[in-house]
């Protein structure tokens, strides 16, 4: 027996999925151990390996692939424990990271402290040079001034360097020269050139990409080396792959060259799992993938079998956080989850969140110090959660404490405790509906035509009313919902992208120049493919994309190109037509007959890793499912209904359960509301069908 292990280290828990070659999956969960990540992984592996009867060392020695998803990079940025990074920029423009692109939320709230730039001004250095919009050198690089600046950096104990010069995507000659000078003057200090990492126009985004990337280099190199050594010491001698923000994986050695790919990589794996399960269950459909945990609710999308991407990924809040600037899986995250706290504002309105009780002090029902009413407490009051079977019975919930906390809200609203609990669930659910609407609107996807995939420990509590509100008729809750991102690791491929910036107006299309750019991208893919072949990979796919817009617009849309070359008007027309279609899909209008402006060209290379097979069980012709208990449960519009409760492991494929009912899985709970039905599929997932009113 050989194994494959996928790991997702989150802020609180480390999730692990152990797959055997028949497709058997075992989940493990343990607290994340920050000082030595392997300790938590070992704990989770121990739990997952229980059923194999083998020890951790034995399982690891028979594992050929470890897929590692980590929040280490994201956390380091939020906690400001990244390298002391210097920022080199064109003379006259030292404040690119300070001024950014403006914008602010809350029109009348001026009590936001001013934003701190990713690299402080004291570590920002101006370089005398200038290139114009067409790539012409206006002022040649002053090498003497640059060298003097680099020597000052040595005195300033700088650990990494980010370089972003104006118009370097149009002509990288000055950035490249600076790169060579850094290697000569400051050997061993890692650096990032913006034109190599992310050659997009818009100096703030490119600078932010470079600064984040450079600042992560020393740290992530160390982190991945340590982790790999720990694995090796414990007996592992297979390959280590790392999850990236492309929703794919890369070899650890490649990713340390561009550690920005690690930022927000964990949530990017959830749609990979969602797509795998959904295609196996219902075939290709547009998907909305939700991952609801204790503190955050993440949403991502799959359209036309492709996970949707964005260039608007922020670390922290939009405007006040830091933008990565990279094309990466579009994941919207809001602070809503089981730990969200309910409160009453000065006008008497019920609010839920954004404050969260987090793991500590936790919801009141955890009994570890929390007293504020949370969504988890409301779910317990309503009877959705079984106090004796939380986390498969490993944690006991205190129903009285939950009721006491929710009673505070009920008292202020002058309603009954259960009504207050229902209202809390509804307001929390509405925030989630809002998050889903925001991303579907942005990406032009109609929820009514989509399948909702719900993962995370808290998703099953109210996914049915959320789906009903969105007009989704079906929801898939994977049995492994509690570890959706780690599951994504099991089914991911090696994905890498290459971008070049080349402006092209279709009214006067520069065929040769564009074909040259596409050929360069293809050559980069070729080189990378050759390296992967040496590592034993055999199946590859190449895709090409253009980011384009109508004249005068400044925000581009992603359009897939049929192939990586333009041989004539027909190829061009196909691209323009695809753009019109995409514009209409996203913005509800198109301007037929209008020419378009092409800005960036991207190539994506995918190397297929064969994931574990999906194990189907024939539908058993079992009798009616047997509930292990029944209780009166409160549902909106129905008051109390007699509701059976099932353990997921007792249900066989083919079983259908009509709501109201509750299904408990060790890492998640599914509430089957009235007017909905759950079916256990051949893959032992749950497909919920929701009657639309």
């Amino acid at each position, binding site marked *: 027996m050989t194994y494959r292990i996928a790991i997702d280290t989150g802020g609180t828990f480390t999730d692990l999925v152990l797959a055997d070659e028949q497709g058997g999956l075992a989940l493990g969960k343990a607290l994340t151990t920050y000082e030595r990540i392997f300790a938590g992984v070992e704990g989770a592996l121990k739990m997952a390996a229980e059923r194999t009867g083998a020890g951790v060392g034995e399982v690891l020695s028979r594992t050929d692939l470890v897929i590692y998803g980590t929040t280490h990079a994201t956390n380091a940025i939020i906690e400001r424990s990244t390298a002391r990074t210097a920022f080199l920029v064109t003379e006259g423009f030292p404040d690119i990271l*300070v001024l950014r692109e403006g914008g*602010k939320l809350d*029109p009348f709230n*001026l009590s936001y402290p001013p934003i701190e730039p990713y690299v402080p001004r004291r570590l920002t250095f101006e370089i005398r040079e200038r290139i114009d919009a067409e790539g012409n050198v206006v002022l040649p690089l002053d090498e003497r001034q640059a060298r003097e600046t680099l020597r000052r950096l040595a005195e300033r104990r700088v650990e990494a360097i980010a370089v972003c010069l104006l118009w370097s995507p149009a002509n990288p000659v000055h950035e490249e020269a600076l790169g060579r000078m850094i290697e000569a003057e400051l050997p061993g200090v890692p650096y990032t050139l913006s034109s190599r990492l992310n050659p997009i126009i818009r100096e703030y985004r490119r600078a932010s990409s470079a600064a984040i990337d450079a600042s992560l280099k020393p740290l992530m190199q160390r982190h991945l080396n340590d982790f790999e050594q720990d694995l090796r010491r414990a007996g592992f001698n297979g390959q280590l792959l790392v999850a990236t923000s492309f929703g794919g994986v890369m070899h650890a050695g490649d990713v340390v060259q561009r550690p920005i790919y690690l930022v927000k990589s964990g949530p990017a794996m959830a749609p990979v799992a969602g797509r795998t399960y959904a295609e196996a269950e219902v075939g290709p459909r547009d998907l909305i993938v939700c991952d609801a945990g204790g503190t955050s609710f993440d949403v991502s999308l799959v359209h036309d079998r492709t996970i949707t991407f964005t260039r608007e990924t922020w670390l922290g809040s939009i405007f006040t956080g830091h933008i990565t600037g990279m094309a990466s899986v579009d994941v919207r995250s809001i602070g809503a989850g089981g730990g969200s706290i309910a409160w009453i504002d000065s006008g008497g309105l*019920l609010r839920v969140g954004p404050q969260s009780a987090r793991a500590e002090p936790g919801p009141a029902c955890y009994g570890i110090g929390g007293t504020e009413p949370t969504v988890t407490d409301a779910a317990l009051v309503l009877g959705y959660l079984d106090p004796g079977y939380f986390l498969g019975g490993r944690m006991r919930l205190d129903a009285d404490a939950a009721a006491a906390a929710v009673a505070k809200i009920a008292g202020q609203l*002058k309603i009954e405790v259960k009504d207050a609990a229902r209202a809390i669930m509804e307001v929390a659910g509405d925030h989630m509906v809002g998050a889903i609407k925001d991303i579907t609107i942005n990406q032009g996807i109609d929820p009514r035509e989509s399948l909702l995939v719900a993962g995370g420990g808290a998703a099953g509590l109210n996914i049915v009313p959320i789906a009903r509100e969105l007009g989704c008729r079906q929801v898939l809750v994977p049995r492994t919902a509690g570890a959706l991102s780690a599951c994504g690791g099991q089914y991911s491929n090696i994905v890498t992208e290459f971008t070049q910036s080349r402006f092209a107006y279709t009214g006067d299309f520069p065929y040769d120049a564009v074909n040259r750019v596409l050929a360069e991208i293809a050559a980069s893919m070729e080189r990378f493919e050759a390296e992967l072949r040496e590592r034993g990979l055999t199946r590859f796919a190449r895709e090409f994309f253009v980011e384009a817009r109508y004249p*005068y*617009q*400044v925000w581009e849309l992603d359009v897939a190109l049929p192939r990586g070359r333009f041989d004539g008007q027909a190829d061009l027309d196909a691209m323009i037509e695809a753009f019109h279609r995409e514009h209409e899909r996203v913005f509800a209008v198109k301007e037929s007959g209008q020419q378009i402006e092409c800005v960036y060209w991207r190539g994506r290379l995918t190397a297929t890793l064969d994931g574990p097979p999906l194990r189907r069980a024939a539908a058993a012709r079992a009798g009616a499912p047997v509930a292990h208990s029944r209780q009166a449960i409160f549902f*909106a519009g129905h008051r109390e209904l007699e509701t059976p409760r099932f353990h997921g492991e007792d249900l066989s494929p083919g079983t259908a359960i009509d709501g109201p009912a509750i299904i408990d899985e060790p890492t998640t709970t599914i509430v089957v509301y009235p007017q909905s039905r759950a079916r256990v599929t051949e893959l032992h997932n749950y497909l919920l069908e929701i009657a639309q009113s």
Partner: protein
Amino acid sequence: MSASPRTNGGELDPALLAVIANRLDSVCREMTNTLLRSGRSAVLNMARDFSCSLVTGDNQLLASAEGLPVHVFGSQFLSEAMCNLHPDFAEGDAFLHNDVYLGNTHSADHTILVPVFVEGQHLFTCCAKAHQADCGNGLPTTYAPFAGDVYEEGALNFPCVQIQRNFRDIDDIIRMCRRRIRVPEQWYGDYLAMLGAARIGERRLKELTAKFGPPLIHRFIREWFDYSERRMTHALKQLPSAELTGTGAHDPFPAVPDGVPLKVKVKIDGEEGRVEIDLRDNIDCLPCGLNESKTCAINNVVSGIFNSIDPGVPHNAGSFRRITVHLRENCVVGIPRFPTSCSVATTNIGDRLVNITQAAFAQLGDGYGLAEGGLGMGPGYGVISGGDFRRAGAPYVNQLFIAANGGPGTPHNDGWINYGLPVVAGLMYRDSIEIDEQKYPIIYKMTRLLTDSGGAGRFRGAPGARVVYGPRRDPMTVVYPLDGHINPPRGVLGGHPGQPCYAAKLDREGSERELPPVSAEKILPGEFIVGVDTGGGGYGRPLDRDPAMVRADVLEGFVSLEKARQVYGVIFNGRIEDESLSVDAEATAKWRAALRGQSGA
């Protein structure tokens, strides 16, 4: 999230009230997103100088998520004009409105109004208002401070004119705009974006109403306004009762050689939770473009109020019930009579009204109000025009958004960098240097925040920038109406003013010559125009600032060592260059005591 109306003790279900309110905000956000991403001119898609709002069938402002305050407070006057002028308006209609005498802000803000019908009843009006890149003015600028009246201003006027019938354009109106507005393709693209936003709002409101049913929606509106009023009352009850008078002045320029003195009287009733603003004691309308429109006079003082209270209060007709604004006809900050020009109503005097109002609240004592925010529409906000040699001389006209006026110090924190102007308070985006250089034949030399430019205070005003740019191969015209050179943003409660702004020109040899504060300047290739922006005013005495914050400011280059010593009274050891700088606490305490003695404070 149930389709059935649910009540509790005669009131709407508490969850439902929150849910529908969130939905309305999300409709506004969807409209906003559509306009931002499909708009053509940089004013829209880069700077986000536009706003979307929803008004009820009886013309009350209902929702305006993330709209610019100066745009949305007043949407109700626009829909009112639609109801009055077109009593037979119907589904499928759309109206173009930019008339300042009928409730619009200024002529350059085109508003598209779409009435939303459910079961034959007019339930809502969707408004999408956007500042145009050009509106057909005599000069290539959307701000005409010199214009003696609307005839000199020259903008095309649309007093709520029908532009769509049965969901189709009325081509006469489109042709008029295409004929008279510079770069008509750009205008038409922006029109489509605005119309698309309003139509998306219409679609979503119909879905929402279909879901909950019109009776429940009516009920929601009533209760939501009541709730908002309760929040507002509660917020105002946190203030002591007082009668305050704020004064200030717009800088002089040739049309108003003595400047424009301004007075805002604020009467707070903390027991009842009400506030009254009186603007009647101000001079008459001026023969230039600086006059406030009625809408701007109201919304800018209301912004000053909202800036000074709990920011969580919803901003709609419900909270407005607690505010009274007294205006007078033919007053520079009142109700203009035709043909008075209000070409620059949204910014210059508008900015002053916001500042004067919020600073007046600081008279209540420490912990209240704000300092004055950075202002001034210098060259960094200039409207540039000319021909682009890279596109066979094709004409271009657009406003740049590259200035950086500093935000005001507040009772709790330093000013917001990238504040822009008081009327937008940081909401607008700023241009990308590279996108500007790609779209227009210009080159930037500098955008740099200046040391010691933010007003000193316990909480410092944000710094202002120096912006330098010029044309590449052909001459370029830059039009700007700058305020804040003579009267920079003031501090409050002992805080210092921010740096004054100015405009200048660098000649081919690089020597700088100051330009007039309001001008249409022709800049030749090899020359550069310079805009130095204001810093925000400081809040509280600089000697009370935490020395650790002064140290950080010195290391970051926002405050010089000399100012740290002379104004903030902080004495350091160590050096800036190697970051060994440290506060000498004992020497600082002594030196501060001495400085306090000198100032008698």
